[in-house]
């Protein structure tokens, strides 16, 4: 009788193919801890409850699936109109040549490796800390893998009001690149910082950002995930928010065969607020499109406010997923939690799965959540067409109108317009084929 061979363990195979970056005692220790966490949790499989709607295989397999490069042709880079400090990563590696000097009024910026090389560094107590905290109650093994094996990243500390946004530009140049980036962000008391991110980054991108905002600090984040059809990404944003602090994040995703964006936010100081928004537009015609927003917001203090606004426009078999949870801890009275996820399905083949959850252990709170899946409004479509607007253009107008509620979550009007204009341009291109 044949004896079944034990299946080579997915997690161990993946670990074996990676190398723990060297350098710096505290960095090495943090990485070793993360590796131990990863081993305990194991990489996610298809049967994991938290991965019920998204197949993690391509994100966990040993080698990154090949991803053809995408030429944006004559398109001006996003955020070009914004006065910003530009920092470039090529396939996950910092590129000093293409980047501005890492110097900005009100902010300290260093490469992760440089920070780890110094025994005494502010980032020491932050690297891996929020990721670790974010592992309960739900495990996030890809984030632990990231902390252990990140090959590059930045540590950014805002001590005052940052003179301008920091713009992280992720270029994709190799069809097989497998990038692991880890950024640590600290916004000190009363300080303010905006981080912009754009670009596909790599064939496969695992990115983790830990953001701790001290009392009365403000953090803004606007991200546009690149249009490469074949790129894959698993990203984590871990945030811990102090009293009266503000956190605002918006993500635009257009194309990408696989995207899983996780937000893990903990409101730990009274009167803090966290807004997370996302707009995803997927067309499965040229390449499959799967987009997953997974959000976990924990209210642990008084009078905090959180808001999740997610919109997806899907067609030709594109798949959208939203898992959003609001957890209100005992004693977190006067919590105001809101969550909405909406999908516009442009045909029968597209699909959207939503799992909104509330878990509340305080009695004086206001929490609401909603999720809708709908088709295009035929009456509105006819009205537009009856005025001479061709079907495709009319559909685009309605799509933009639908998405706009998420875009309005961006605080800065210039950035709002930048995103809007970009979407319009992309829709026009798509239409022209």
């Amino acid at each position, binding site marked *: 009788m044949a004896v079944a061979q034990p299946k080579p363990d997915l997690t161990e195979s993946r670990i074996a193919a990676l190398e723990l970056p060297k350098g710096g005692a505290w960095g090495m220790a943090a990485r070793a801890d993360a590796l131990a966490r990863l081993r305990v949790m194991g990489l996610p499989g298809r049967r994991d409850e938290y991965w019920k709607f998204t197949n993690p295989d391509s994100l966990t397999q040993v080698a990154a699936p090949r991803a053809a490069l995408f030429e944006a042709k004559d398109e001006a880079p996003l955020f070009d109109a914004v006065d910003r400090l530009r920092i470039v990563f090529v396939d996950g590696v910092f590129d000093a040549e293409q980047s501005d000097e890492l110097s900005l009024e009100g902010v300290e910026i260093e490469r992760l490796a440089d920070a780890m090389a110094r025994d005494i560094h502010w980032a020491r107590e932050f690297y891996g800390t929020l990721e670790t905290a974010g592992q309960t109650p739900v495990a996030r093994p890809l984030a632990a893998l990231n902390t252990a094996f990140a090959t590059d990243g930045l540590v950014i500390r805002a001590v005052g009001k940052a003179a301008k946004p920091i713009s992280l530009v992720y270029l994709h140049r190799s069809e097989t690149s497998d990038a692991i980036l880890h950024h640590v962000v600290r916004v000190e008391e009363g300080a303010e910082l905006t981080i912009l991110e754009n670009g596909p980054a790599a064939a496969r991108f695992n990115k983790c950002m830990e953001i701790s905002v001290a009392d009365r600090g403000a953090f803004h984040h606007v991200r546009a995930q690149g249009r490469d059809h074949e790129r894959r990404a698993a990203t984590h944003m871990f945030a811990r928010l102090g009293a009266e602090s503000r956190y605002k994040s918006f993500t635009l995703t257009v194309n990408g065969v696989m995207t899983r964006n996780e937000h893990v936010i903990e409101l730990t100081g009274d009167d803090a607020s966290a807004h997370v928004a996302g707009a995803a537009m997927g067309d499965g015609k040229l390449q499959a499109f799967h987009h997953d927003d997974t959000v976990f917001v924990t209210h642990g203090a008084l009078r905090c406010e959180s808001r999740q606004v997610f919109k997806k426009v899907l067609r030709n078999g594109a798949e959208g997923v939203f898992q959003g949870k609001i957890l209100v801890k005992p004693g977190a009275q006067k919590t105001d939690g809101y969550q909405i996820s909406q999908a516009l399905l442009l045909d029968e083949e597209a699909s959207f799965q939503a799992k909104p959850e509330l878990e509340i252990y305080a009695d004086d709170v206001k929490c609401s959540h909603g999720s809708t899946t709908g088709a295009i409004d035929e009456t509105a479509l006819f009205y537009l067409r009856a*005025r001479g607007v061709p079907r495709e253009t009319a559909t685009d107008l309605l799509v933009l109108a639908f998405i706009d509620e998420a875009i309005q979550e961006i605080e800065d009007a210039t950035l709002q317009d930048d995103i809007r204009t970009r979407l319009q341009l992309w829709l026009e291109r798509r239409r022209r084929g």
Partner: protein
Amino acid sequence: MLTIKNLHVKLEDEDKQILKGVDLTVEAGKVHAIMGPNGSGKSTLSYVLSGRDGYEVTDGTATLEGEDLLGMEPEERASAGLFLAFQYPVEIPGVGNMTFLRTAMNAQRKARGEEEVSAGDFLKLVREKAKALKIDAEMLKRPVNVGFSGGEKKRNEILQMAMLEPKMCILDETDSGLDVDAMKLVADGVNALRDAGRGFLVITHYQRLLDHIRPDVVHIMADGRIVKTGGPELALEVEQNGYADILAEVA
């Protein structure tokens, strides 16, 4: 201008015949009015002409300046010069009135091989036309028809008509829900567009609008057919006696 022959229309999903042989010709430069009891098929006629889904033409033809309307997409009909002022104008949250108007204008121009209107010219034009209809700038900025009162929606329809300058205008109860002053504004808007090259089909229940827009011909529609055609005096007769006599007479 508009020629409808023996038009038969049923609902697509139901076995229900709504138009049962409509014959109607609107000549260029003329204003025709259609009156008729509720449910007689007036709006259906206007929807079928503009290409709305849900109806099936089982017989008959409709042409605009000799071109077959029924084979065209709704946007093609619009570019060919057909305009329908909706009985119930549609609200479109998130789409600005100005964006909507400009997109429509340029789409039509493009379809006809004409030059697009510049942002500056457009703005000038829309301000001028809006002013005549007492539509303020704030309303223009709002999303299409969202939060507009019933009367404001109707005036907005006329603004679109004035901007798009169609050849054939169908107005479906544009007068319902209008106060006396707004009715006058709408009528002025229509009259300003009257010229030798343009036809109008005005669907209404009331004589009042027709006092301002003097129709050349009045039709009575009942149960999916035009049952009587006459001059402006026909509208007065309906106003005074209702439809009972007319329907009895043709039955």
